[in-house]
């Protein structure tokens, strides 16, 4: 098994792999364009031993106007994980479904559809309710969704609720005489 960097460089001949970043000894991230993603996933699975799809998730970069899908693959023999980033347009986000490669991906895709509104055409049961039932707002994990306002509007807030900074509160409670100096104690 080649070094993952070398591996990615080798794949780089055919794929536009960029932003290779070795997070840890056993975890490497990289980015590919949306169009090449599924093809690369297939090759990683079939040729490079990354047979396990650990998860599929999404990062909302509202400022940049993109979603970054993260496919986390794992190679059992090499004990190494590869995180593949794929950028999508935030508006009308759509991605090719990979339920044909890993059947369990359908579940992740259902979740992403529900939480972020990303469409995966062809993915089974994509539009059925998953975690939410009868959701009638924009997908709740999108950053433009104001969850506090929504909660206030729908669930009402009980009066008398106060908020305190736990650190300050506990300090006052436990060490009333302590002056403000950085503490190296409790983690």
């Amino acid at each position, binding site marked *: 098994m080649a070094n993952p960097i070398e591996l990615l460089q080798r794949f780089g001949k055919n794929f536009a792999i960029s932003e290779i970043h070795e997070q840890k000894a056993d975890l490497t991230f990289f980015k590919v364009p949306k169009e090449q993603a599924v093809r690369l996933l297939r090759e990683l699975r079939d040729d490079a031993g990354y047979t396990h799809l650990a998860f599929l998730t999404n990062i909302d970069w509202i400022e940049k106007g993109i979603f970054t899908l993260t496919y986390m693959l794992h190679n059992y023999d090499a004990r190494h994980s590869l995180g593949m980033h794929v950028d999508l347009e935030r508006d009308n986000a759509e991605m090719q479904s990979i339920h044909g490669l890993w059947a369990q991906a359908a579940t992740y895709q259902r979740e992403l559809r529900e939480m972020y509104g990303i469409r995966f055409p062809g993915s089974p049961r994509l539009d059925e*309710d998953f*975690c*939410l*039932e*009868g*959701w*009638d*707002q924009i997908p*709740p994990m999108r950053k433009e*969704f104001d*969850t*506090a306002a*929504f*909660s*206030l509007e*729908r*669930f*009402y*807030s*009980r009066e*008398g*609720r106060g908020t305190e900074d736990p650190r300050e509160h506990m300090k006052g409670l436990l060490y009333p005489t302590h002056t403000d100096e950085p503490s190296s104690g409790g983690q």
Partner: protein
Amino acid sequence: MDTQKYALGPLLNEGLSAEDRDLFSDARPVPYEPYPVAVVEKFVNWVRANSLWLLAFGTGCGAVELNPLMTARFDAYRMGVQMRPTPRQSSVFIIGGYASVKTLKRIIRSYEQMQGPKFVVCLGICPINGGMYWDSYNTVNKFDEYLPVDLYITGCMPRPEVLMAGVLELKKKIMEGRADGANRYVENFDWYKANQKRVIKDWNMPDYNW
């Protein structure tokens, strides 16, 4: 707020499809009066207080605190508490912490299937005001808007000791005849239903789960 009285004819069960409506009862729940003889009612209340059958339905993270209750260390059996696996036979529903909208639906369903007199005990801070999930998109903040609560036990999470103290408190309340949540629910049925339906958007069950 809708203030229709409870004796207003059958429920509409609008959440069900036409063919499913045949499968579910559309009867409206009715409150029960106390026994005509006061002594009997008092005695029965004592009996109820000393035989608390909990519905074994852990609805939130607080459920982990329920299990130690029945172990050798705490042994709630002493106080007449035991777990029942079916709502039909249970008399106490412990809401184990935060209630998400999805769970709320199941809670309502199970609560309505319990037979009166029945009591609801809320565990932890979340059912009171949302607790740490106060601004979440799927956690209800005021549980008593949806079901009548007989007792709150606050804390995050309350330890089993507190739970036991709560049980004792509940007993006291029952013996005094003040734990009338089941009747309150029925008497304010339309108000509760309206609240429930306001948050549960896919109401695909009958209006009252007999």
